[in-house]
C-alpha cells in the first residue's frame, strides 16, 4: 500500500483565486493511497519545500504529487527536494493546476473540479512510478576527427589545446583538404596557403594529436563515451618513421608524367610523390597503379637513392584500433565535374556545355590552381589548351546547383562569392582582360560579402549578366557562350577564350558508406544531417558524434571554422565529466517476451536498438532479441508504441503509468 503525499499550492492568488485549493486537498486526502494532503501558499518557497521534506519524514511518504505550476517550471525543484528528503526523485510528480487550469478557466467550480481530476490522475500515476537511477556511462577522453581539411584541423587543434588526445584520420597522403588548393580567399583576399600551412604544421606537431594520413575508417563500434574505431592505414610503401622528406626519390623517379590530381591535372607528378610541396606530412607515397616496380617488377630507383632506406615495397595496409569517446566528422565536399560524372551524382549532366570535351571550359577549383602562386603556372592565368593568356573570360554560376531538373535543388552557397573573387584575381593578373559572369542571383549573405561582390563589379569592372547560359560550343580557338540578359530581354553572345564553371558543391562520393559505419543519418543528397537545424547544428542525432564543415552542407571557410570550433566545444563539454549522467528516461526490452521482429529497431530515430544474441552456457545461440543501448536511446518511446508484443518499455512512461492515469479519469 502506497503512502502518497499531496501538496496543493496557492501560488499566492494565481491558483487560489479560481481553484478552491482547500477543497482540492481535501478531496485528494480521500483518494486511495494518499496518506497526507495539504495546501500551502507558495510551495516553491523555502518554507514550502521544507513542508514537503518534513512531511516525507513524518508521514513516511513514498510518493509525492505537487499540485502547482507546470512541471516545466518547477519539476526539478521539487524532485530535488524529494531527493534531499531521501526519496527517489522520480517518485515525485507535478499536477499542473496553474497553466492548465486556474489561468485558463474562470468558473471556480469547474476549475476546482478539473484541478481535483488532475490531482487524481497524477496520484494514480505516481503510485505506478518506479525508482529510477540516472544512467551513467564512463567517458574515454579521446576524440577521433575524420577528415583533415580546415574543418578537421581546426576541431583537432581546439580539442588538443584543451588537453585531450585527438586521433586525426585523413584519407589522402596529406592533410589540408580543399583549402590547401585555393589561391586567395574571399572576403579578404588573403593567401590560402599562408593561413593554412601553419595550421597544418601545428596539427602535425601537436603533442596531443595522432595523425593518420593515407588512412580510412574501417569500422566503428560502441557508443557515446566508448567508441572503438578501427583505422585502416593504407600502405604508403614508404616507412614514415625513416623518411626524412628529402625528396630525392621523387626527383629521381623515371615515371614523371602522371597527371597531378591536386593541380586538377594541369601539371604532372612522379609515381612516388607528395601531393604538393607544403604537404603535411612531407612523406611521399608510391602510387602503385603507376609505379613501374609494381607494374613490371623492374625499376626500384627510389629504393636505391633513398639514403635512410625508407622505401618498403612490401608494406601492407595496417589496421589500428583506437578507443575514443567522441567523433567529429569533417570529410568535406567534392565539386561536381562536368567532365566525368562522379559515381552516385544525381546531376544528369551537361551535354549543352560539351560534357567536358572543350579543353578551355574548366571548373572553379582548376581556376584556383591557375591563380595560385604555387600552382602549375606559377600563378599566371593561362588557358589549358594552348597556354595563351585569355582576354575574355566567361564565368558561369549555378552549374548543377539550383537546377531541380538537372538533379539537385540546393544552392552551393560558396560559388557566388568565389566567382566574384575569380573575376578580381583575373583582373589583377590580366589588366586588359574582361571578365563576364552569367548569374541568377548573387547570394552574399555574410559579413562584408555583398560589399566584396559589389567591388568586383564597380571597381574591378566585371560585367555581370543576369541569366543562365544556354549552350557553349567551340568555334576556332574561341568558345561561344550563348546567354541572355534578362534585364533587357536581349540575347547575348560572347566569344570567350576561357570559360569557368561554378559547379555544384556535392558530398564526397562514399559519404553514405561512412555514415552507415558511423550510424549517422544523411539527407537525400548524402550531406550529413544535424540533430536540429537551428538548435543542434553540430550534433548528430547519434550521441557523441559531431559534424564540422562542408560534409554537413555547402560552406565557406568562416562557416566551416565556426562549426569546427563549435563541434570541438561540444566534445570538450562531453569530456568535462568522467561519467555521463542522463535522465533515465530510456527504453528497456523485456527479453522474455521479445519476438525479435525488430520493429523497434526500424522505428528508432536514434539507432539505439541493437540485436542481442542470447546464448546458453555452452555458447550456443538460443535466440536473438532486441536490446536498447541506454547510452544512445533518446527516450522518445516510439519503439514501445510500435512493439507488437509489448516487450519494450520506456522508463518513466510505462504503459502502467499511462493506463493508471486514464483509469483515474
Amino acid at each position: 500500500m502506497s503512502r502518497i503525499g499531496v501538496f496543493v499550492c496557492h501560488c499566492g492568488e494565481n491558483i487560489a483565486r479560481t481553484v478552491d485549493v482547500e477543497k482540492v486537498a481535501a478531496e485528494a486526502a480521500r483518494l486511495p493511497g494518499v496518506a497526507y494532503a495539504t495546501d500551502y501558499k507558495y510551495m516553491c518557497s523555502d518554507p514550502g519545500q521544507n513542508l514537503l521534506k518534513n512531511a516525507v519524514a513524518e508521514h513516511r511518504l513514498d510518493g509525492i504529487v505537487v499540485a502547482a505550476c507546470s512541471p516545466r517550471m518547477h519539476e526539478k525543484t521539487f524532485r530535488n527536494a524529494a531527493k534531499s528528503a531521501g526519496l527517489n526523485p522520480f517518485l515525485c510528480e507535478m499536477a499542473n493546476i496553474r497553466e492548465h487550469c486556474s489561468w485558463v478557466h474562470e468558473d471556480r467550480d469547474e476549475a476546482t473540479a478539473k484541478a481535483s481530476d488532475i490531482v487524481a490522475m497524477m496520484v494514480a500515476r505516481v503510485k505506478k512510478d518506479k525508482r529510477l537511477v540516472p544512467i551513467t556511462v564512463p567517458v574515454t577522453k579521446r576524440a577521433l576527427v575524420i577528415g583533415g581539411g580546415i574543418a578537421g584541423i581546426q576541431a583537432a587543434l581546439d580539442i588538443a589545446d584543451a588537453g585531450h588526445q585527438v586521433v586525426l584520420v585523413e584519407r589522402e597522403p596529406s592533410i589540408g583538404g580543399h583549402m590547401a588548393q585555393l589561391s586567395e580567399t574571399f572576403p579578404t583576399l588573403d593567401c590560402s596557403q599562408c593561413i593554412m600551412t601553419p595550421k597544418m604544421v601545428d596539427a602535425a606537431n601537436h603533442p596531443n594529436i595522432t595523425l593518420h594520413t593515407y588512412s580510412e575508417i574501417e569500422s566503428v563500434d560502441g557508443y557515446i563515451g566508448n567508441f572503438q574505431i578501427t583505422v585502416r592505414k593504407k600502405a604508403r610503401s614508404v616507412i614514415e618513421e625513416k623518411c626524412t622528406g628529402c625528396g630525392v626519390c621523387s626527383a629521381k623517379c623515371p615515371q614523371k608524367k602522371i597527371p597531378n590530381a591536386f593541380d586538377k591535372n594541369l601539371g604532372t607528378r612522379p609515381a612516388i610523390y607528395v601531393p604538393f610541396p607544403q604537404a603535411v606530412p612531407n612523406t611521399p607515397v608510391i602510387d602503385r597503379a603507376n609505379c613501374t616496380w609494381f607494374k613490371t617488377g623492374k625499376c626500384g630507383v627510389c629504393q636505391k637513392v633513398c639514403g635512410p632506406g625508407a622505401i618498403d615495397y612490401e608494406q601492407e595496409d595496417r589496421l589500428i584500433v583506437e578507443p575514443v569517446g567522441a567523433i567529429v566528422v569533417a570529410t568535406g565536399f567534392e565539386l561536381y565535374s562536368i567532365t566525368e560524372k562522379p559515381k552516385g551524382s544525381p546531376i544528369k549532366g551537361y551535354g549543352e556545355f560539351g560534357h567536358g570535351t572543350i579543353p578551355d571550359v574548366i571548373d572553379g577549383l582548376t581556376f584556383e590552381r591557375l591563380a595560385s602562386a604555387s600552382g602549375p603556372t606559377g600563378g599566371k592565368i593561362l588557358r589549358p589548351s594552348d597556354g595563351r593568356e585569355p582576354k575574355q573570360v566567361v564565368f558561369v554560376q549555378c552549374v548543377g546547383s539550383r537546377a531541380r531538373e538537372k538533379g539537385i535543388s540546393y544552392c552551393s552557397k560558396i560559388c557566388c562569392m568565389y566567382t566574384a573573387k575569380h573575376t578580381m584575381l583575373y583582373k589583377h593578373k590580366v589588366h586588359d582582360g574582361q571578365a563576364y559572369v552569367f548569374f541568377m542571383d548573387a547570394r552574399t549573405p555574410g559579413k562584408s560579402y555583398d560589399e566584396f561582390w559589389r567591388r568586383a563589379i564597380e571597381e574591378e569592372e566585371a560585367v555581370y549578366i543576369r541569366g543562365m547560359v544556354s549552350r557553349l560550343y567551340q568555334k576556332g580557338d574561341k568558345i561561344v557562350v550563348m546567354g541572355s540578359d534578362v534585364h533587357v530581354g536581349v540575347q547575348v553572345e560572347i566569344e570567350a577564350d576561357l570559360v569557368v564553371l561554378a559547379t555544384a558543391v556535392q558530398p564526397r562520393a562514399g559519404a553514405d558508406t561512412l555514415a552507415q559505419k558511423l550510424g549517422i543519418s544523411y539527407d537525400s543528397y548524402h550531406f550529413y544531417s544535424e540533430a536540429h537545424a537551428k538548435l543542434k547544428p553540430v550534433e548528430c542525432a547519434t550521441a557523441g558524434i559531431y559534424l564540422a564543415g562542408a560534409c554537413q552542407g555547402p560552406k565557406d571557410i568562416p562557416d566551416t571554422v565556426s562549426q569546427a570550433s563549435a563541434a570541438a566545444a561540444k566534445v570538450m563539454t562531453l569530456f568535462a565529466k568522467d561519467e555521463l549522467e542522463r535522465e533515465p528516461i530510456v527504453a528497456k526490452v523485456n527479453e522474455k517476451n521479445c519476438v525479435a521482429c525488430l520493429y523497434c529497431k526500424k522505428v528508432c530515430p536514434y539507432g539505439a536498438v541493437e540485436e542481442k544474441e542470447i546464448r546458453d552456457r555452452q555458447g550456443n545461440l538460443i535466440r536473438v532479441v532486441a536490446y536498447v543501448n541506454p547510452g544512445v536511446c533518446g527516450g522518445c518511446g516510439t519503439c514501445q508504441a510500435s512493439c507488437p508484443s509489448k516487450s519494450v518499455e520506456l522508463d518513466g512512461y510505462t504503459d502502467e503509468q499511462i493506463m493508471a492515469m486514464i483509469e483515474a479519469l
Partner: protein
Amino acid sequence: MKHSTMRLSTETMNLDFVKKVEALSGSSVRRCFQCGKCSAGCPMRSFMEHPPNRIVRFLQLGQYERVLAGRSIWYCASCETCTTRCPNKVDLAAIMDALRKCSWDAKGPSKESYVQLANRLFIDNIRTYGRQYEMRLAAVFNVKSGQFLKDLMLGPKLITRGKLKVFHQKNRNMAEIEQIFKRIEEMRKKGEAP
C-alpha cells in the same frame, strides 16, 4: 536592332561613351544593380520603350546605340524620383540629362522631335529675350511642329485672364546674356567643356 543579339566583347562595348555619360552626369553607371526601383516609380515609364533601369543596363554593357535609338530619354520629365529613391545613388535624372545632351549634340538619332523642338525653342527664347514668353513659345512650337490648332481653345482663355502676354520686352542686359552663350560655345569649340 531592338531584338537582335548583343555580341559582347571589349570592342563592342563602347565604354568611352559610358565614361562620357558618367563624367557629364557625375554619376556611376556600374553601381546600378538592376533592382528596378527607378522604373517602379517613374511617372513616365508607360510612355517609354526602355524603362530607366534598362537604360542604365544598356549603358553598363556599352550599348549606346540602343540607348539613344529609343525615345525613352525624351520622355523623362526630370522629376528626380529615380534619383531620389535609387538605393545605389545612381543619379538617373542626371544620366538622362547627359544622354539627351549626347543625342542633342549628335543631332539625333532621337525619335522624339517634339520634345527636342520645345527644348530648342525654350533655349532660343532665353538667348533672344532673356526670359520666357510663353505666348511666343507656344505659337512658334505650334507652327514648327505643324500642329497649328493645338491648344487653340486654351489661348484666348489665358489671354483674357492675363496669363499669356502678347507683347514682351527684352532684358536690359541682353549683351551679357549673349556673352554667356558665346563663351560656352567657345569653350566647346576648344574642347574645354563638354
